[in-house]
């Protein structure tokens, strides 16, 4: 399988990349890790005539921490997140979820920014980014702007990144207090994508009840969604089994479920209930044991 022909640019500065996108307009496509785009190009489902490869822009890679938040360069690979000691301490759900993405070779090339912008409905990062209330920094030809995860996922394979813009950084506030995090995924056995994935972040009060929480779901519909009814039902409870089970059942409300040959709408609905419950329980365990984040995958 051979891709269509294209002109290749590998800028070393963000501004150079933005200028190339402005120059080539709709003809140009940004290349990050390439593990979604290159297969699409081989199938000629994508035939960009200009490729702007971000892999040589050093400023887009790396993880830094300051003022209560972590900033992750958009071109930081899944593997770099998986092995980051800083993230294991500050935002443990990120490395924990990273280990469940694809396979080691995919993680060595694939990037968090590429995954977020691609906005695959079965991607793992969108749920985690939503649950962590991540802020995406975008640079365009005229201005820079920041978009919250909540507004970032617009539709199937469509993010809020406008033509000509590049996602440069993902900024996430570091959780404080007694918190627990988890990402639970039911993976498609062949592709490894999430048939359903649920990220849960819990903040406990002094009595180990739920002071605050955020729960987000990927794989269910066209875009990742926050389970706002589940969150509301959990807040203020003692996080006993009954409260968690009740809240998890509410996770399906408001989702326009997608069905396919592998998992029907009804089956996905059931998976969302089950994996939401598991994610909340695992987050609770990680909070009460102080063991960082728990992530698990079922195939």
């Amino acid at each position, binding site marked *: 399988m051979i891709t269509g*022909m294209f002109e290749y640019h590998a800028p070393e500065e963000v501004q150079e990349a933005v200028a190339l996108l402005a120059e080539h307009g709709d003809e140009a496509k940004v290349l990050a890790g390439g593990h979604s785009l290159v297969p699409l190009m081989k199938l000629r489902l994508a035939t960009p005539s200009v490729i702007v490869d971000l892999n040589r822009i050093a400023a887009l890679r790396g993880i830094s921490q300051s003022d209560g938040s972590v900033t992750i360069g958009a071109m930081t690979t899944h593997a770099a997140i998986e092995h980051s000691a800083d993230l294991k301490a500050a935002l443990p759900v990120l490395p924990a979820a990273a*280990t469940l993405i694809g396979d080691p070779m995919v993680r060595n*090339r694939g990037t968090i920014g590429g995954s977020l912008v691609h906005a695959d409905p079965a991607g793992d990062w969108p749920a985690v980014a939503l649950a962590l209330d991540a802020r995406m920094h975008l640079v365009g030809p005229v201005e820079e702007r920041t978009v919250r995860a909540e507004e970032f996922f617009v539709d199937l394979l469509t993010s809020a990144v406008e033509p000509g813009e590049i996602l440069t950084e993902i900024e996430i506030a570091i959780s404080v207090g007694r918190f627990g995090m988890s990402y639970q995924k039911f993976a498609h056995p062949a592709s490894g994508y999430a048939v359903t994935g649920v990220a849960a972040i819990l903040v406990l009060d002094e009595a180990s009840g739920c002071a605050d929480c955020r729960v987000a779901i990927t794989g269910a519909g066209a875009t990742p969604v926050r389970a706002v009814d589940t969150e509301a039902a959990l807040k203020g409870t003692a996080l006993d089994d009954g409260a968690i089970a009740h809240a998890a059942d509410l996770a399906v409300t408001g989702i326009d479920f997608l069905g396919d040959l592998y998992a029907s709408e009804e089956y996905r609905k059931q998976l969302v209930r089950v994996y939401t419950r598991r994610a909340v329980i695992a987050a609770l365990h990680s909070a009460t044991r102080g063991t960082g984040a728990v992530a698990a995958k079922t195939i």
Partner: protein
Amino acid sequence: MATYSIAITVNGTGRTGEVEPRLLLVDYLRNRLGLTGTHVGCNTSQCGACTVLLNGQAVKSCTVFAVQATDSDVLTIEGLATDGTLHPLQQGFWEEHGLQCGYCTPGMIMSSYDLLTHNADPSEAEIRHALEGNLCRCTGYQNIVKAVQYAARNGGLNDVSGRASQEETGGTA
């Protein structure tokens, strides 16, 4: 369509060439350099038969353009044996019957190589997790796991620590 000049160090040897940007790294290695030990399996980033190390990290060379690898170090299965002596990973696959048809083996070995650079003494679970991106349709994986364990017990990656001294320059793709 324009071609691009690339310079890649492959198995310690500097290589230069002119490539179309759409040329995949795996096709560059196989068709231009004649290094056919790296296999094309699915060509869709699933099977791992094309795995090579790019700057020390295992990647699927069917999903990287050769032009992206310029100024990088690539290690393929051909770069493992030294002076006719098999690398411990190769010896492990031999001793433990880690292959039947052998098609997936170069990719299995290169992924295992990446694992052993991070983890000199991996558990069975860690080996299986590390080989998730490599499909074998013959063996049922058990002997592949044993082969990696054999390599970890018998020198691991020590054999190739002297690789840098063997670097040559020259050679044109």
